[in-house]
C-alpha cells in the first residue's frame, strides 16, 4: 500500500504524456529493429544507438519536468549561445564529409545547429506570444523573420541545407500559427519565387548537383543518381508484404547507400513492405495528432505556438525524409526521426518531445492550482 502510494507520487513527479510516450517507444522499437537489420551484424553500432536512445529518453523525461515558462525566460540566452556556437563551428569546427557541423567539446561531439532547431522556434514563440494584439504586428513579425534568418543562414553556410531548411520550417510554422495574414504570406511567397534564381546561384555545386539529379536521376545512374535509384529499387522491391526482416537484398548487399542513416526507410520498406510502411506512417501520424491535441489544449499562446511548431516540424522531418528516400524530393540529408542512426538528432527530437510533454502536463496542474 505504501509502495503503491510512493509509486503514484513518483509518477506525478515525472510529468509524462503517456500516449506520446507509448507512441515514441513504439517508434524507437521499430527504429531499433530496422537498425539491427541495416547494421548488418555491427553490434557496436546498435549498442551506441541504444545508449543514445536511453540518453534521449532521459533528456525527454528531464525536460518534461521543466516548467514551460522557464523556457520563456531563458530562451534569448539559449538562442544567442547557439548563434555563438554556430560561429565557433564555422571557424573552428571539425570537417565531416566536407561540411563543418561538429563541435568537439571533450565528452561528446555536438552539432550546435541541433540546439537551434529548438531554440529558434522557441524564441519566435516568446516574441510573437508577447504581442498584446490578436495578431503580432508588422515590426514583431519582421523581427521574427530576422531572428529566424540569422541561424538559418549560418547553418546554410556550414553548409547543411537539410538542417537549415528544418530550422527555417520550424520558425515559419510559428509565424504562420501566430496568425500572419494570408496576403502577407502570398506576398512573401511571390518574393521567394522571384529570389529563386539568386538562391540557385548561391548554392554550392554539390547542392545544385543534388537538385539536378533529383530532377533526372537517370542522368547520372552511377554517380549522384545512384542513391535515389537504388533506394527506389529497395522500396519498390519490398512489395506489399516486404521481403521479411533481415531479408532485404538491396540493404544487405550494400546497394542502398547510407542504409543506417538517412536511407534507413528504404531498408525498412524493403523488408516490411507497404504494410509495414502503413504501420510506420500510422505511428508517425499518431505522434503528430497527439502533438496537435496538446497544442490546441495548451494553456497559453506561448505553449500553444511552441507545441504546434514542434509538432508540425516533426511532421515535416518525416515527410521530407520519406519524400527524399522515395525519390519525390532531392537528397537533402534529413534523417528520419528516431529511425535513422545518429546521436544528436535523436536527442534533439526527444528533447522537443520532453518540452511537448511539459506543455501537455502543465495545463491540468494549472487548473488544479498547483503552480
Amino acid at each position, binding site marked *: 500500500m505504501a509502495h503503491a502510494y510512493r509509486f503514484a507520487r513518483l509518477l506525478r513527479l515525472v510529468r509524462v504524456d503517456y500516449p506520446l510516450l507509448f507512441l515514441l517507444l513504439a517508434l524507437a522499437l521499430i527504429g531499433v529493429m530496422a537498425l539491427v537489420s541495416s547494421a548488418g551484424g555491427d553490434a557496436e553500432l546498435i549498442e551506441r544507438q541504444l545508449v543514445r536512445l536511453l540518453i534521449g529518453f532521459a533528456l525527454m523525461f528531464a525536460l518534461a519536468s521543466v516548467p514551460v515558462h522557464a523556457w520563456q525566460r531563458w530562451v534569448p540566452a539559449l538562442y544567442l549561445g547557439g548563434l555563438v556556437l554556430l560561429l565557433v563551428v564555422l571557424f573552428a569546427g571539425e570537417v565531416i564529409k566536407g561540411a563543418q557541423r561538429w563541435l568537439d567539446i571533450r565528452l561528446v561531439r555536438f552539432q550546435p545547429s541541433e540546439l537551434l532547431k529548438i531554440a529558434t522556434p522557441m524564441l519566435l514563440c516568446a516574441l510573437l506570444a508577447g504581442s498584446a494584439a490578436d495578431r503580432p504586428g508588422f515590426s514583431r513579425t519582421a523581427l521574427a523573420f530576422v531572428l529566424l534568418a540569422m541561424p538559418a543562414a549560418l547553418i546554410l553556410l556550414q553548409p547543411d541545407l537539410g538542417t537549415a531548411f528544418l530550422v527555417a520550417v520550424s520558425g515559419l510554422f510559428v509565424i504562420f*500559427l501566430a496568425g500572419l495574414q494570408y496576403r502577407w504570406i502570398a506576398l512573401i511567397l511571390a518574393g521567394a519565387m522571384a529570389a529563386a534564381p539568386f538562391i540557385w546561384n548561391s548554392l554550392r555545386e554539390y547542392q545544385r548537383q543534388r537538385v539536378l539529379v533529383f530532377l533526372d536521376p537517370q542522368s547520372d545512374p552511377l554517380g549522384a543518381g545512384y542513391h535515389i535509384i537504388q533506394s527506389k529499387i529497395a522500396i519498390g*522491391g519490398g512489395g506489399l508484404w516486404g521481403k521479411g526482416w533481415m531479408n532485404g537484398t538491396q540493404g544487405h548487399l550494400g546497394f542502398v547507400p547510407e542504409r543506417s542513416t538517412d536511407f534507413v526507410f528504404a531498408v525498412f520498406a524493403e523488408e516490411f513492405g507497404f504494410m509495414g510502411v502503413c504501420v510506420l506512417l500510422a505511428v508517425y501520424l499518431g505522434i503528430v495528432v497527439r502533438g496537435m491535441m496538446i497544442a490546441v489544449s495548451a494553456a497559453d499562446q506561448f505553449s500553444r505556438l511552441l507545441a*504546434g511548431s514542434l509538432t508540425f516540424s516533426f511532421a515535416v522531418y518525416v515527410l521530407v525524409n520519406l519524400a527524399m528516400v522515395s525519390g519525390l524530393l532531392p537528397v537533402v540529408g534529413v534523417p528520419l526521426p528516431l529511425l535513422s542512426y545518429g546521436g544528436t538528432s535523436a536527442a534533439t527530437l526527444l528533447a522537443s518531445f520532453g518540452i511537448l510533454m511539459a506543455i501537455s502536463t502543465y495545463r491540468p496542474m494549472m487548473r488544479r492550482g498547483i503552480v
Partner: protein
Amino acid sequence: MSERARQLLFMRRTRVAALVMLALVAALAFHLFTLQVTEHGHYRTLSDENRLSLIPSPPPRGLIYDRSGLLLADNRTVYSLEITPSLVADMDALLRQVRAVVEVGDDDLRRFRKALRAGGFTRSIELRTRLSEEEVARFAVLRHHLRGADVVGRLVRHYPYDELFAHAIGYVGAISRDDLAALDQRRYRGARHVGKTGIENHYERELHGLPGFRRVEVNAGGHLIRTIGGSKPRPGSDVMLTIDTALQEQAYSALGDHDGAVVALDPRSGDVLTLVSKPSFDPNLFSGSFSRERYRRLLNSPDKPFFNRAVSGQYPPGSIIKPMVALAALHNHVGDMQRKIFAGPYYQLPGYSRRYHDWREEGHGWINMNTAIVQSCDVFFYDTAHRLGINRLALFLEDFGLGRPTGVDTTAELSGIVPSPQWKREALGQAWFPAETIIAGIGQGYMLATPLQMAAMAAVLANRGERVVPRLVKAVRQSDTGLWRPLPVAERKRVIASPPEHWDYVIDAMNAVIHRPNGTAYRISRGMDYVAAGKTGTVQVREIKEDVRYGGEKEELEPGSKLEDHAMFIAFAPVENPEIAVAVVVEHGGSGARTAAPIARKLLDVYFGLLRAQFSLHASG
C-alpha cells in the same frame, strides 16, 4: 477576449496546416503505394538484376589427337591475376600493391593498360598469367586488401609438342575486336581465346563447345556472395588428326636448320600424314601471356616463322613438273616414248637469239623422254613445252590440281599459279611471250605451287590420274556421346584420262630417278628396301649472267645463302599400290638431289619401318 480570439485563430491555423500536412501524407502514401504495389514487379526485377549475376563458365576446348591417339593439344588450368576496373577506386595504388605481391613485368603492364583504355568487353582484365603456386598463395593471404584484384583459374590451351605442330594444328589466341564481330556472342560468353589458324580455326565450331552459367548473388561491391544455380558447359568435341607424330617428328628434324616444308599424304585417302613448315614457333606463346618483344622478334624475323610454308608458301615447282609435262605431251600426241632428240647445252627458239641453258653445262646429247626425266634434261622439256604450247600444258596441269586450292581442311591455303596467256592478261595485263612457254616446261617462270599442291600432285601420279582431297582431320568425338565419328573420305576423282601405258612409262622413269645409277636421286636408293618413284627439282633463285656462265668464275655460295637455289623433291612409294606421297621443299637448299631427296628418304624409311613394326606386331600378336 483576446486570449480566446488568439486561441481560435491558432486553431484555424492549425487546421489549415494539418490539412496541408494530411494532403502531403496522402500524396506520399499514394507514391509509396505506386512504388511498392503497382510497380512492384518492375522494381523486383531491378532488384534481382542488381543482386543476381550470371557468370558464364566457358566450355573446355576439345582435345586434338594424332592418328594413333597421341594427345597433341590439351587444356591446362592456369592461374591469372585479373583486375575488375569497375571495383577499383585508385588503379595506380592497386597496381603498386599488387606488384609487391606478384611479379608484373612492363610488358604485362603495358598490355593491361592498353586493354583498360580500350574498355574491353570482359568485366575483368588480365594483368599477369601463369602465376606460380607460390604467387597464388602469397596473393591469397592479402586478397582482402586488394579490392578489385582476384586470382582466377582458367583452362588454357597447351601444346605438349611445342613448335612441332604449330603449322599443322595452328594455335588459339586472345579474342580480338575483329574476332568478336564474327563470333556468336552467346557461344563465346566468358571465353578468352579462339582458334586463330590451322585446325584450331578451321574446326573452331567443333572444338569450342557451349558455355554454361552460374547464377550467383553479388553485393554492391561486385563480390560474389553465393552460388544459386546454373548449368554446366558442354565441352567442345575432340578432333583426331590424320597426322602421324613419328613422321612429323622425322620430317621436322630432317629439315634441320633449313627453311622449308614437308608434306606427306596417303594417296588412297588424302590423309595428310605430315605437314611441317620451318621455321616454326611455339604455339603455347599465344595462349599465355606473350611478351611483346618476343612476338615482334618472331614477327619481324626474316625467316617468317608464322608463315605456313606448307599451304601458303608458293614456289616455282621446277623440274618436279617434268613427269606431268611428259604425260601432257604423250596425251596430246606431241611426244613419243622412244624418239630421241639431240639435247645440247642450250635451247633456242627458232628465230630467236636467246639461249635457254640446260643445268648440265655440256648438255645431254641424244636423249629420249625416259632418260630426259631420269636425268632431268632441261633442253628436252624446253622443246616439249614448245611443241605442246602453253594452253595445252596449262590445261593439263590444272587437271592435276595446280593453280587452285586443294580444298584441305585448314586455313590460309593459297592456290599457286598455272600461267597461261589468259592468266597473264588478267593478272598482269600483259601479252604472253613464247619464251615463257619454254621455261614453263621446266616449272619455272610464273608457275607457282604450294608444297601441299606438290604432294597432291605426287598423289595423282601415284593414283595414276585420280585426285584425292587432302584432309587433316579423320574423326570427331562428340562430347555428349563420347563416340568417335569418322569424317567421310572425299571421293577419288579421275582427273587425268591417260592410258595405262603412259602412266607405266612415266612412273617407270620416276622409279629410275631413284633406283637407276644415272637417276638424279640415285644416291638415296642405297639400302632402300622398298620401291619408290620420285623426281628432283632445283629452282633457280637468281639469274645466272651469261658472262658468268661462259668463262667467268662461278662464285661459291655459303650453304643456305639466300641466293642458293630452292631444292625440291616429290616421291611416292611403294610404286605398286602407293601408300605415301611426299613433297619436300627446302628453301635455298642447293640441289633437289642433294638436299630435298634425302629428307624424303628419311621420311619414307620411318613410314615403312613403322608399317613393318605394326605388321610384325600383328603377326606375333
